[in-house]
C-alpha cells in the first residue's frame, strides 16, 4: 500500500499549497519538540461566542469547532505543524485505485469512544453517510464537497472504502476536514440530531461540563488511542462576547490563549505590558469577509443594483483602514489572493468593485442605480452578527461607503444563532454580512457556496454556467486547467455581483509563552485538538 501523494502527482500538486505559513512559523522558532513537554495543567482559553449547537457537521462557526474539536477524532487531519500537509488521524494508511474512483482507508485498532464502546469502520461509515447523504430533517452544510462520492462501505471493522463516480481533486482535503468528527453509529441510529446537544467522541479530551454563556470544559481522556497524549489534564474555555474583555482576560492571566484573533491595538498593549511572557503568531487567513446579497428579493434581483453595491466599496482604502482594527487587510476575489488558486491582481482589477479608481467606481455605481430606477438610492437593512470582531467594524465601513452612492443602510446585529438562521436557513434578509472561512485553501470548499442549491449559498442565486464550471473544476486533476475553470467562476460571480467579497483576513493568535507546541494554522478551525499542547511552568 503506497501513500497517495506518490501515486497521484496531480493530486499531490493540488494538495500542496504554498508553504509560506509553515516557513514563517518555523522561522519564528515555533517548530515542535524544541523543549521537553511537561504533563499536567488545564489550558485556560477565551472564546467570543456560544455554539449554535454542538454538532460540528451542522455548524460552521469557530464557536463550535474550537470547543468540540478536542473531544473528537477525524479520519484524516491537517498536520498541526505543517499546513496544508494531510496526515492520518483515525486512518493509519490509505490507497487510491489507479482510476481514482476508490479510496480505501485502514483504521487504528483499539480506538474507543468516551462511553467505552469501540470505534469501528461502521461508525466512520455512519458518520460520513450522515454528512454526505443526510436523512431528511438533518442539515449537512458540507455535503456539496462530496458530490463525487456515491457510496461508503465498511467491508470489515477496520476498513472504510469511499466509492466515487468521478475522480475528485479535493476529496482527501475534504476528508481531513476538522468538522467531520466521527460519531458512534448507535447514537446516530437513535437520532441523527443527537449530537446537537450531546458529546460522545474518541478525542484526546472528554467533555467535563458546559454551562451556556459561561464555560466549556474538557478533561484528559485516559483511553486516548495516541500513546502518551494528551499532555494537558484538561482545557477550559471562558465564553465572553466582548473583545476588550477577552483581551483583558489574557492581559491579566485569567486566560492564556485566544485562538481566533485579537485586534492589533489590543495585541500591542498586551505585548507592552507582558513582554516576553506573550507570544503572537500572525498568520494569513483562509477567510474573507463579504456580504451575501439576497438575489431573490427586490431590488437585488436587478444585476445593476447588485453591481452598484460592489462598485460602491473602495476595497483598497478599506484594507488600510480596517487592518489595525480588525485584521481585515487583503483585497481579493473568491479565492485567497496569495494562494495558488487566487486570481492575479491584474485580472481582478478589471472586475467591478476592484477598480483602482474609487471615484470612477462610485460614478458608475450611481449611473447604474439611476438606470435601475433608483436615482436617489434606497433604504436597506444589512443584517450582521453581533460579534464585534470583525463584523461590526466591517459593517460600519460598508455603510459609510454606500452612503456616498445614496444607499441608506441600517446595520442590524443579530445573535449568532439568529444570524445563521436568517442567512443560512430561511433567507430572511436583504443584505447580510457573510464571511467565507474554510479550513484550507481548497477550491471545492471556497466555491461550493456559489453552486445552485448549496446550503451555503446564502444569496440564493442560480447560474447554470457557474454550476457547470464548478462541477468541471472539481474533477479536473490538472492544476493548470483547474485554475482556469476556477478563475472563470470568479469572473462570472463577480461580474454579475451575485455575491460581494470584501477583504481577506489576517490573524493575530495571542497566547502566553508558557502555552507550548501550538502552531497557528492560517485559520481557527484546524489544529484545535490540543493533543500536543503543553504548559510550561512559569
Amino acid at each position: 500500500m503506497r501513500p497517495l501523494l506518490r501515486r497521484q502527482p496531480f493530486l499531490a500538486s493540488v494538495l500542496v499549497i504554498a508553504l509560506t505559513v509553515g516557513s514563517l512559523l518555523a522561522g519564528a522558532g515555533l517548530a515542535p519538540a524544541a523543549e521537553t513537554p511537561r504533563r499536567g495543567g488545564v489550558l485556560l482559553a477565551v472564546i467570543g461566542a456560544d455554539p449554535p449547537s454542538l454538532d460540528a457537521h451542522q455548524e460552521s462557526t469557530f464557536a463550535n469547532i474550537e470547543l468540540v474539536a478536542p473531544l473528537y477524532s477525524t479520519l484524516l487531519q491537517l498536520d498541526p505543524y505543517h499546513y496544508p500537509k494531510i496526515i492520518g488521524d483515525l486512518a493509519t494508511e490509505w490507497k487510491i485505485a489507479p482510476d481514482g474512483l476508490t479510496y480505501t482507508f485502514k483504521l487504528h485498532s483499539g480506538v474507543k469512544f468516551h462511553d467505552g464502546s469501540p470505534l469501528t469502520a461502521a461508525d466512520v461509515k455512519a458518520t460520513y453517510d450522515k454528512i454526505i447523504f443526510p436523512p431528511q430533517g438533518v442539515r449537512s452544510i458540507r455535503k456539496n464537497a462530496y458530490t463525487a462520492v456515491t457510496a461508503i462501505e465498511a467491508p470489515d471493522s477496520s476498513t472504510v472504502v469511499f466509492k466515487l463516480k468521478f475522480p475528485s481533486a479535493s476529496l482527501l482535503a475534504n476528508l481531513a476536514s476538522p468538522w467531520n468528527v466521527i460519531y458512534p453509529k448507535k447514537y446516530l441510529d437513535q437520532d441523527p440530531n443527537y449530537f446537537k446537544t450531546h458529546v460522545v467522541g474518541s478525542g484526546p479530551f472528554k467533555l467535563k461540563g458546559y454551562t451556556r454563556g459561561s464555560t466549556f470544559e474538557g478533561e484528559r481522556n485516559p483511553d486516548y488511542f495516541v500513546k502518551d497524549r494528551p499532555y494537558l489534564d484538561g482545557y477550559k474555555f471562558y465564553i465572553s462576547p466582548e473583545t476588550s474583555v477577552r483581551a483583558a482576560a489574557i492581559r491579566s492571566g485569567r486566560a492564556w490563549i485566544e485562538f481566533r484573533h485579537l485586534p492589533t491595538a489590543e495585541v500591542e498593549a498586551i505585548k507592552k505590558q507582558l513582554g516576553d511572557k506573550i507570544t503572537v503568531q500572525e498568520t494569513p487567513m483562509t477567510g474573507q469577509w463579504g456580504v451575501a446579497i439576497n438575489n431573490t428579493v427586490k431590488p437585488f434581483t436587478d444585476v445593476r443594483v447588485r453591481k452598484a453595491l460592489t462598485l460602491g466599496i473602495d476595497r483598497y482604502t478599506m484594507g488600510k483602514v480596517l487592518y489595525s482594527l480588525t485584521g481585515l487587510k487583503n483585497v481579493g476575489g473568491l479565492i485567497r489572493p496569495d494562494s495558488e488558486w487566487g486570481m492575479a491582481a491584474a485580472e481582478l482589477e478589471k472586475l467591478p468593485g476592484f477598480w483602482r479608481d474609487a471615484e470612477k467606481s462610485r460614478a458608475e455605481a450611481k449611473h447604474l442605480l439611476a438606470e435601475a430606477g433608483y436615482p436617489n438610492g434606497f433604504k436597506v437593512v444589512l443584517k450582521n452578527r453581533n460579534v464585534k470582531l470583525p463584523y461590526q467594524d466591517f459593517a460600519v465601513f460598508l455603510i459609510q461607503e454606500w452612503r456616498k452612492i445614496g444607499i441608506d443602510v441600517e446595520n442590524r446585529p443579530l445573535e449568532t444563532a439568529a444570524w445563521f438562521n436568517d442567512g443560512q436557513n430561511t433567507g430572511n434578509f436583504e443584505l447580510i454580512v457573510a464571511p467565507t472561512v474554510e479550513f484550507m485553501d481548497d477550491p471545492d470548499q471556497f466555491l461550493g457556496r456559489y453552486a445552485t442549491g448549496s446550503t451555503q449559498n446564502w444569496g440564493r442565486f442560480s447560474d447554470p454556467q457557474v454550476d457547470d464550471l464548478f462541477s468541471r473544476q472539481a474533477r479536473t486533476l490538472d492544476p493548470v486547467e483547474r485554475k482556469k475553470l476556477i478563475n472563470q467562476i470568479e469572473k462570472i460571480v463577480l461580474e454579475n455581483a451575485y455575491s460581494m467579497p470584501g477583504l481577506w483576513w489576517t490573524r493575530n493568535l495571542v497566547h502566553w509563552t508558557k502555552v507550548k507546541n501550538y502552531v497557528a494554522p492560517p485559520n481557527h478551525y484546524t489544529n484545535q485538538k490540543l493533543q500536543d499542547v503543553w504548559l510550561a511552568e512559569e
Partner: protein
Amino acid sequence: MRTYVAKRLLLIVPTLLGVAALVFFIMRVIPGDVTLLILGGDQAGRIDPAQIAAMKHQLGLDQPLLVQFGTWLWGVLRFDFGTSLWTGQSVIDELLIRLPLSLELALLASMVSVLIAIPLGMLAAVRQDSWVDYVVRVVSIGGLAIPSFWVGILCILLLVIYFGWGPPLEFTPPWVDPWANFQQMVWPVVTVGYRYAAVTTRMTRSTVLEVLREDYIRTAWAKGLRERVVVVRHALKNAMLPVITLIGTEFAFLIGGLVVTETVFTLNGVGRFVVDAVAHRDYPVVQALVFLIAFSFVIVNLLVDLTYAWLDPRIRYR
C-alpha cells in the same frame, strides 16, 4: 392590617395569570417559526413539510392555542417550565445555574445603594445648597449620566493596567469560596451600585426636602427638638415611601435587566439568558423567564406595599 395583607396576596393570582397569558400569546404572535429553527433546514431552508408537521406535533404546537396555554399553565403550577428548545435541558435547571448570581448581584447592589444613598441624600437635603449638597448632586448626576458598562470596562482596564489583575471569569457561589466570589462580584456591584445609588440619592434628597417643608416638621423644630430627632425620626420615615418604591422596582429590574453589565464582567446571569433565549426564539425559556421576572416584580411590589403599610398607618387602616 391582616385584611390588607390578605387582599394584597389575593391580588397576586390574577396579576400572574394576566402575565402568563400575555407572555404566552405574545410569544405565539411574534414572527419566527420555532420548528424551522430546530430543524435547521437543508438545502437553503427547504424543509420537508412532513418534518415540520412532525416537529410541531412533538412540541405540542399543533394543538389549539388554548390547549397549549392550559398545558403550559398546568406545568407552571407544578413548577415545571418545560425544556429549553436550544439546549435540551430543563428550564428550571438552566435558571438555577444563573439565578444565584443575579440574586446576589441584585442584593449586594441594593445594599450598597441603600447604605450610600440614604445618608447622602438626607445630608444633601439637610445641607441644601451647601458644598456638601453640590458634591452629592454632581456625583449622583454622574452616576445617572455615565453608562454602567462603561464604568465596568474602565474598572477592568484600570485593574489590568495598573495591577496586572482582572476579576475571575467564572462565577463561584459565596458558599463555595467566599473570597473568589468577592473578587468577582465586587466590581459589578460597585458598577451597578453606583448608578443605583445615584438614582436613590436624588430621590431621597428631593423627598426629604419636600417633607422638611411640611407643617409638622416646623412644629417639631418649634418644640425645640434636636436636628437628629427632627430629621431621622420625623422627616426620614415619611420621606421614605417613594424611595422604597424605587428600591423595590430597581431590585426587581436588576434580576433580569443587567445584560450589558453581565457581558462586560462575563457574568452568566439571568439578563444575558433572557436576551439569548429571545434571539434563539427559545419559547419555553422566554416564557419562563419573563414569567419569573414578572413574579419577582409582583413579590417585590407586595413587600413594598407591606412596608408602606408599616411606615404609614393610614394605608393599613384604609
